[in-house]
């Protein structure tokens, strides 16, 4: 396997991981008003690589944020307890949006690397042209 295909492989693994992260973020955002929803967290880890293969990245297991759920006061709500409160979700939109911005930035960086590698290998192929 040439270095270029290795570079393309590892860049696409980065793109995949960031897209997966973005998917979980949008899941959190769309469930921001679901009662009792705990936000999902994904972490990245380096995939095990054999020989001189580059270290690809993959998303690890999904964790649920165990921080306290927001208490919402609404006595008319069907889930409300004796005190008139029910458990909301622990999603903080500000955090999710900041995280999404970071994911976008990393995604673009990976895309840039992919493009750069593609340019290099097409330059190599141009040697065959006269």
């Amino acid at each position: 396997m040439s270095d270029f295909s290795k570079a393309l492989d590892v860049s696409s693994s980065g793109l995949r991981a960031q897209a997966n992260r973005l998917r979980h973020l949008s899941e959190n955002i769309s469930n921001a008003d679901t009662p009792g929803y705990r936000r999902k967290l994904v972490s990245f880890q380096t995939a095990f690589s054999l020989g001189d293969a580059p270290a690809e990245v993959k998303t690890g297991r999904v964790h649920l944020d165990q921080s306290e759920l927001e208490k919402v006061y609404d006595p008319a709500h069907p889930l409300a307890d004796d005190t008139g409160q029910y458990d909301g979700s622990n999603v903080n939109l500000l955090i999710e949006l900041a995280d999404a911005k970071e994911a976008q930035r990393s995604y673009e960086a990976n895309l840039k690397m992919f493009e750069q590698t593609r340019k290099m290998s097409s330059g190599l192929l141009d040697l065959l042209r006269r």
Partner: protein
Amino acid sequence: MFEQLDVFRMSSSMAVHAGQRQAIASQNVANSDTPGYVPKDIAAFEALYQSGHDGSAQRATRTGHLHGSVEGQQIAEPFEVRDEASPNGNSVSLEAEMLRSLDAKRQHDRSLAIYKSALSVLRSTIGK
């Protein structure tokens, strides 16, 4: 036949080196959010060429060998670049990786230009 000519050999190993550097930079960017990841780099081509030492990694001669170059491929030994780390222990700087990748691209273009020009000299000697 071309492998015997020094200018071809040098420019092609320069292109291989640039490819390796690009692969390393891509790896660093892909892992830019992995907790605890330390970015890697390989020595500059000039340094490797002048020292005479090819800087290659250990060979993997069996399938059980986890690291090292396979099939007689010469790969430069990557080393870790310790830099300021973010709270999760990751010390990749996207800007530095972009520069590294740009460096690799320029080196690759340069080596291809040398190869091309040497090839055209060779062509003109056979009158085509």
